[in-house]
């Protein structure tokens, strides 16, 4: 009951603040609610009702049709995302470890050059990258996309780990080196066990980035190797046939669910990644 004393009085301005915040909650939720409602409606329902009208008959036909169309692309996205996330995170961790604890002449310069990659407009590398993938025989394959995502994800993954490791006291590593521990032993025994939070941040950041990518997907893949974002865009923007909005919305939900799920389960790390990526050290 003592806490009551600390609570601010319920004044007019506080009511106004709550009102604004609650209205904003509804505004942010509307698109998601509309997507869900539409995806469970029949085409007739969509024609006769409006965005927020309750379906007269709840049907999963939109989801069934959408899944049949995008199923293969959904798995493509996993096939691209999982290896790309794991590889780029591993390399990022090792890079960050070197750049913070095993600096050598030129390593700072390299870090500076790498950081620019966080801002690089990918349009400036698309053509050469597609020539290279062609030469490597990886054009229009999911492997090619894994490769591209690893390369252009390195800037962020290295930044995450480097900034995290910089705050670890040097003495820890120095002591281990005096005891004769080598590069990888120190990494495995000392650094890795204290890296769990930043590994989570990096995994979630990379997963969201790569799963949601469209530019690389649309440029470097075709037909059967396309990721879900490209397939969704193709489905929604085809001009042939009758528009089935319930199918469109179900497909959009399917494309959005994995990252939404990650956000709901590990939102804390997602936010940390966003702000760590934003506030450069």
């Amino acid at each position, binding site marked *: 009951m003592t806490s009551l004393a600390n609570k601010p009085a319920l004044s007019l301005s506080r009511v106004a603040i709550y009102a604004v915040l609650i209205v904003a909650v509804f505004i*942010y939720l509307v698109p998601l609610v509309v997507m869900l409602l539409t995806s469970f409606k029949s085409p007739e329902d969509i024609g006769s009702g409006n965005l927020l009208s309750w379906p007269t008959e709840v049907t999963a036909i939109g989801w069934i049709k959408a899944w049949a169309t995008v199923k293969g692309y959904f798995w493509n996205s996993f096939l691209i995302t999982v290896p790309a996330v794991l590889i780029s995170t591993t390399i990022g961790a090792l890079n960050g470890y070197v*750049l913070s604890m095993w600096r050598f002449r030129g390593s700072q310069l390299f870090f500076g050059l790498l950081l620019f990659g966080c801002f690089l*407009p990918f*349009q400036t590398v698309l053509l050469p990258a597609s020539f290279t993938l062609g030469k490597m025989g990886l054009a229009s394959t999911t492997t090619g996309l894994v490769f591209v995502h690893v390369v252009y994800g390195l800037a962020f993954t290295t930044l995450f780990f480097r900034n995290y490791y910089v705050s670890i006291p040097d003495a820890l590593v120095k002591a281990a080196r005096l005891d004769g521990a080598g590069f990888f032993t120190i990494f495995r025994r000392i650094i890795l066990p204290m890296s769990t939070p930043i590994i989570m941040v990096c995994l979630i950041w990379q997963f969201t980035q790569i799963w949601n990518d*469209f530019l690389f997907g649309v440029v470097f893949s075709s037909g059967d190797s396309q990721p879900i974002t490209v397939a969704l865009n193709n489905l*929604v923007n085809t001009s042939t046939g009758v528009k089935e909005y319930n199918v469109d919305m179900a497909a959009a939900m399917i494309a959005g669910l994995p990252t939404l799920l990650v956000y709901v389960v590990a939102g804390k790390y997602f936010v940390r990644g*966003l702000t760590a990526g934003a506030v450069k050290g």
Partner: protein
Amino acid sequence: MSSVAVFSKASPFDALQRWLPKLVLAPSMFIVLVGFYGYILWTFVLSFTNSTFLPTYKFVGLAQYARLFDNDRWWVASKNLAVFGGMFIGISMVVGVLLAVFLDQRIRREGFIRTIYLYPMALSMIVTGTAWKWLLNPGMGLDKLLRDWGWEGFRLDWLIDPDRVVYCLVIAAVWQASGFIMAMFLAGLRGVDQSIIRAAQIDGASMPKIYWKVVLPSLRPVFFSAVMILAHIAIKSFDLVAAMTAGGPGYSSDLPAMFMYSFTFSRGQMGMGSASAILMLGAILAILVPYLYSELRAKRND
């Protein structure tokens, strides 16, 4: 004797240890030099050639840039970027800062509300674009909803109006990114020394005034980072246009990223496409360099 033995035994190990960090970093160094800077240079070179469907290395000087500046569609895309970028940054900042300040007033269920504001950031721009394309559908979307709810004269057909279609992109982009600005500023507000606020309160200043005059000015670095990130998102915006309008009607909602894609990969104008990519890089550098400069100077002054 024994010390020599130890020395010779330790030596290759030591040498390896000395080289290991460099060896580990080497592949990434190669990737950065070739895949980042080498490729930029390559695109730069292509922008001076008359490449069409395939790269050719016949140099035509600045002809591709001249063609670009003669191209009406490029000007539409650039003007759209200015309008889209300006409105997207401005509105996202206002909404984000306002929500952050309000959420900082010891709000019940703050965590839950924050989660709602930020979830669009987890979605792909393609999903966002698909959802908003449906919401803004003339005749079936919000257009109809508000009429059904009793606002008889309501019309919302911006998606098919060449003069207003850019605003549709702004709406969707603000919906997606404003929660992120909220999160950045909320994190900043949590770092503000509460005693400053107390002191100002004792002096009789009102809360809005305290925030406007004392608290928000102390968050200048957050402000700059936020604008920087939003500008960066705006210049790179491609997926949102692709999903919502595909640049249409006509090319009235084109953005440079969309222009670059369609000229390079669909229309076989590799030279001009490369020139547009280089100009996009120029735009990024134009905002990045002053930002980094002020950051570095701030750090030196600390």
